[in-house]
């Protein structure tokens, strides 16, 4: 197991290096005329900076590799992501304030996704090719096609027209008022979660179908165990192992979807931070969010892989 963890951690290093390069190169593509546009579009910018100062603040006056070394060095050694161009707050501070909100939304959506997917998937497999199976599968695949932002828009519009009710958009932090906060987050979490559930549902179903045909399940039946026990204790437990990997694969979708939900329901998480930064062309914030999101996804995948090694002994010895 230790060798497995060590191998997995070592593999993370080149991946993280490439990720940092992707972030760096993408954002450093800033063409010169963007600087002029930043100055012309943004009044604060024109007051605060001259063109040269802005170029220097973005570090664009140095050769590329120095820029990269400087940027990475600051992050690795001091956790310094630079400062926001217009607000002059350290980016790391902004990231720390926003990260838990997005994390909470993502976690809630994940719980919803699993709560929808696993029962439907298990039921579909147990009653294969019945009307219930088709209904559950069709519902779940339909939810995959419904765009989250459309769902969100309809939740904002229709209840307000029909019943004069609309979701609260004044954000309350969890620490301040947990109940109100949960009430606010649950709607976006449900929308995000149901759209993610389709893939998990399909995998649960496939794995369940496979497991239900195994000898040990027949043994469990033969012992005269009730269906509940056969399914819960013997089948589902084994069928869900691959589903864990899927959580890692879905992490990017979860974060991408969170951006849109945060925009619709005005939830001050990483997504809203990024969108605001894009509108103001605040590149240090954009770079920071970009990198943190990538690292977060990689760490989630690492955790998933490690737990997979823990759940499935076969993996460890590979």
């Amino acid at each position, binding site marked *: 197991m230790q060798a497995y963890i060590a191998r997995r951690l070592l593999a993370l290093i080149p991946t993280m290096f490439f990720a940092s390069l992707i972030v760096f190169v993408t954002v450093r593509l800033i063409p010169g005329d963007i600087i002029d546009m930043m100055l012309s579009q943004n009044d604060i910018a024109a007051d605060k900076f001259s063109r040269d100062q802005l170029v220097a603040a973005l570090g664009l006056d140095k050769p590329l590799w120095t820029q990269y070394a400087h940027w990475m060095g600051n992050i690795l050694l001091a956790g310094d992501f630079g400062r926001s161009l217009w607000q002059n707050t350290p980016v790391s501070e902004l990231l720390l304030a926003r990260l838990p909100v997005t994390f909470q939304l993502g976690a809630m959506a994940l719980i919803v996704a699993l709560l929808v997917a696993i029962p439907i998937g298990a039921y579909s497999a147990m009653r294969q090719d019945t009307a219930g199976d088709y209904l559950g599968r069709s519902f779940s695949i339909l939810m995959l096609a419904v765009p989250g932002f459309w769902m969100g828009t309809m939740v904002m519009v229709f209840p307000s027209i029909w019943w004069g009710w609309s979701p609260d958009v004044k954000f309350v932090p969890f620490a301040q008022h947990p109940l109100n906060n949960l009430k606010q987050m649950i709607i976006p979490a449900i929308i995000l979660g149901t759209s993610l559930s389709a893939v998990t549902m399909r995998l649960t179903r496939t794995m369940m179908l496979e497991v239900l045909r195994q000898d040990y399940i027949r043994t469990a039946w033969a012992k005269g165990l009730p269906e509940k026990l056969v399914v819960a204790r013997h089948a589902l437990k084994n069928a869900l192992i691959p589903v864990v990997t899927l959580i890692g694969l879905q992490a990017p979708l979860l974060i991408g979807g969170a951006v849109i939900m945060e925009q619709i329901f005005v939830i001050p998480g990483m997504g809203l931070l990024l969108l605001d*930064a894009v509108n103001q062309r605040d590149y240090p914030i954009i770079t920071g969010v970009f990198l943190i999101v990538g690292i977060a996804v990689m760490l989630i995948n690492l955790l998933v892989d490690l737990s997979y090694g823990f759940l499935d002994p076969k993996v460890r010895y590979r």
Partner: protein
Amino acid sequence: MATIAAPHVRRWRASSPTLTFIGRLFREKPLGAIGGVVFLLFLLCGIFADLLAPYGANQISPINRLKPPSLAFPFGTDNLGRDMLSRCLYGAQLSVIIGFCAAGLATLISVLLGILTGYLGGKFDLITQRFVDAWQSFPDLIILIVVVSVVEPGMPQIIVTLGLLLGIAGSRIIRSAVVSVRENMYVHAAQSIGASTPRILWHHILPNVLPPIIVLFTTRVGVVILAESGLSFLGLGVPPPAPTWGGMLSGSGRTFMFQGPWLALAPGLCLTLVVYATNMFGDALRDLFDPRMRGSR
């Protein structure tokens, strides 16, 4: 009697593999076939939008502001009196262009990268795979937003970014198909008679990974359309007044949805229908091409 029937059956089978395949699609996967038909209709709507749309996409008509759906305006009109049906049809056109171009580019990149890494293997493969790992750690939408913040929003930028984005991610699927084809006897035979690598790739590997390529392309069209509409919804896609489905649900239209709820319905329904049809069609193709892949992504 059986001796008479046998040649007849064989001749019918040999007549057209495409027709036989379509026949199988309708018989074995009726839902997927319906998806394919909707997909085709959507494509035709996009191509012939100029002929089908009763009004122009941006034809403003102040007397017809916020009209509910009626015979003259089946999907209603928006706050500027623009016909929603026409805008949805032109939206289909934009979606078709972006969807097919970006999915085509993505498939091309996936195939190039997948075949090269899968067939050549070695250090090149190892390094490329770490790069693909890193690339896949970023949510599509986040990469799109960041790229759009650097280059201005616009159709070519979105096509290239989405093509690159999905192309690199999709190379894994082609790669794994190539890795399994690579070990086939006919490939070893070609290698042993001294066929050049490009020749093996072109004549032996590529034709045998064609099914996953077709499936990849089909499903990618849906993914691209969804991604583009998400971006347009955030105001970072093809700039207004272009009638993108995502854009119609955002921006100035949003404030008028409370007076004209039909504004919120049509673009979302179009989007859902097309993506649903594409998914069903792609799934059916995958199941027919390769039953072992069923249920996996």
